């Protein structure tokens, strides 16, 4: 869908992107992660052709990116905004027409969306009369109305209350099911783990990690398990197939331990070792979060 090759972008005082390459697969949800200032927005602005890279190329469905691809993208910028004094309906039609929809088609689709999201009564209202959350909803509709092949969402959930965030999330997933490729950008790494198929991590203008979430997590799993048991405290000796990292006990005599498997051992070995000794409530593999992976990766580089 989107092939980003060796993008470099230099601003007056600093380098925003140094030699960033990414592949976004068609029909997938792709997360662009990284702390503030990592270069996410710079990269997005290059994809949406708001700015041009100093060097490097972008291919959209195999073609070199140009003006003709603009109508195939929908972009929700991090800083949201609409014309404050324009009526919602008219404004949505205008934005859709700028993306190449006809007036009639825009109206037809708007009616469907407004009904779907409970916005029917907003048609004649002005943006300044809406709450922040309502404005966000309207802006989301404006972004997706022309049914873009590639949907670029910069921090899509900020500004929504939990209920609306859930609604928007469902809409995004549905658009994805219908075939839209989605490119997310966020600095809240935990928030997209459940949504994304693949991610790329940016830090200080460089890509430091990318791939499918599953692959990344497999790479970074480190055989750490969390176990809870009840009863007397068990003393582990050298015969245990693991190494004890941490041990806790609560008032109801439940013990929680964090362990790291010895090389070659499996979770089954652990259970076999523990079952004769105590009553096990829970055994769970501890998979590092994207945040932890990010911090580990950054530390590795530094």
């Amino acid at each position: 869908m989107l092939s980003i090759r060796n993008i470099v972008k230099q601003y007056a005082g600093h380098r925003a992107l140094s030699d960033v390459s990414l592949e976004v697969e068609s029909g997938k949800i792709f997360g662009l992660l990284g702390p503030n200032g990592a270069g996410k927005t710079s990269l997005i602005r290059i994809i949406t052709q708001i700015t041009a890279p100093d060097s490097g190329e972008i291919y959209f469905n195999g073609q070199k990116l140009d003006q003709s691809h603009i109508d195939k993208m929908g972009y929700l910028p991090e800083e949201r905004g609409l014309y404050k004094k324009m009526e919602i309906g008219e404004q949505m039609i205008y934005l859709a027409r700028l993306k190449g929809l006809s007036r009639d088609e825009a109206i037809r689709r708007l009616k469907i969306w407004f009904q779907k999201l409970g916005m029917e009564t907003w048609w004649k209202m002005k943006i300044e009369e809406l709450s922040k959350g309502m404005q966000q909803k309207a802006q989301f509709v404006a972004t997706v109305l022309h049914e873009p092949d590639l949907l670029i969402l910069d921090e899509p959930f900020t500004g929504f209350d939990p209920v609306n965030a859930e609604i928007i999330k469902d809409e995004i997933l549905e658009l994805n099911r219908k075939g839209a490729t989605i490119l997310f950008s966020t600095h809240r790494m935990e928030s997209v783990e459940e949504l994304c198929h693949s991610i790329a991590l940016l830090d200080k203008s460089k890509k430091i990690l990318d791939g499918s979430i599953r692959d990344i997590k497999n790479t970074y799993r480190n055989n750490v398990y969390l176990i809870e048991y009840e009863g007397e405290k068990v003393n582990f000796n050298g015969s245990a197939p693991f190494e004890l990292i941490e041990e806790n006990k609560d008032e109801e005599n439940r013990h929680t331990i964090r362990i790291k498997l010895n090389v070659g051992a499996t979770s089954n070995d652990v259970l076999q070792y523990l079952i004769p000794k105590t009553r096990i409530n829970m055994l769970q593999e501890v998979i590092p979060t994207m945040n932890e992976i990010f911090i580990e990766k950054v530390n590795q580089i530094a």
Partner: protein
Amino acid sequence: MNKVLLIIQREYFTRVRKKSFIIMIFVVPALILVMTLVIALVAMNSNQLTEQQIVKVLDESGVFAGKFHDVKNIKFESSTQSLTAAKEDCKKNENLSALQIPAEYNKKDAVNIYAKKKPEFALTIEIEKQMNDIAISNGMLKNHIDTAVVHSIKSDISLNSIEITDAGDKKSNIVANIGVGIACAIFIYISLLIYGSQVMRGVIEEKTSRIIEVIISSVKPFQLMLGKIIGVGLVGLTQFFAWIILSVIATKIAGAALSAPKGTMLNIISVLSTIPFGHIMGLFIFYFLTGYLLYSALFAAVGSAVDSETETQQFMFPVTMPLLFTYILSVSILFQAPNSALAVWLSIIPLTAPVAMMIRIPFGVPGWQLALSMSLMILGFLFTTYVAARIYRVGILMYGKKTSFKELSKWFFYKE
């Protein structure tokens, strides 16, 4: 290109549908109507405006008594009262004044007029004129010059100004020319500022509401800037045409309603007919459009460089300077010498031409100067649009930075 049309449409209709726009369309011609009515009334009834004035002439010289002649609303009465008695009378009657002429009336500051109110300018002028005439006639008679000769010498001169043109001599009215020139210059100056700052406000609005990023992910920044400039310009033209049509109707109605005496109206019409309105109107539209395109591009660049309207000051000053400078010169000096070197140069340099040329047009401008000025206007707006677009495309995405001129020039050289 289709997208630019959409932007033009939006910019145009959101402004034209505003209540303030519709109100302005009617308010301005209404003002013109009222002004025309007032001027016509004043012209027709000027002699009724002031009440009848009576001047008591206390003549100690014996030269003037009985020789004053009454005019429109001034009546002269010879009196033998003492000055104190006359002054008492004047205290009681506002429209009475006492003219005291001592025997040695020729000395400086010898003649006095007493009245309860400050005597009107027209009254003193009239008295001075009559006294001078009488004194001169008296002097001539004393020197044995025949009264018949004196009368034949007396003259009443007013100048007719006649232009020599290829089509033959043309009578022109200097006052009317100056009036039309100044009116056009003021109008173009105000219009450029009003519509230029509308463009600037539009840019700032898009920037502060942050919709700019959404729009320029659909269109190129240059298309947006161009669409906005053209849209607002069309609003300006719409307003002009509406005003012209309504004003013509309004003055027609006013003229009919007044059923003005034929003499006065004919006089006004004959003066107005010496002014080539079609020619002036055409050039006005040209200079408005090119001047507007030139300045609004600069205004757009200023708007893109700031985060709010309060920050525009430092950039507005250099942008509006040439306009203000020419405007002040035009209404104070240039109209007196429309063909001076200063006026010619100002009417050729694109930044100052829209205002300066308006002053010169009613007096006639040589063809080559007009052609040079007009071609430079076109080159000028192409140039400012190019420069402004390069600053604009960077500026609209910059937030939170205090911008300096140095910064602006850096933006100009940025790559895409």
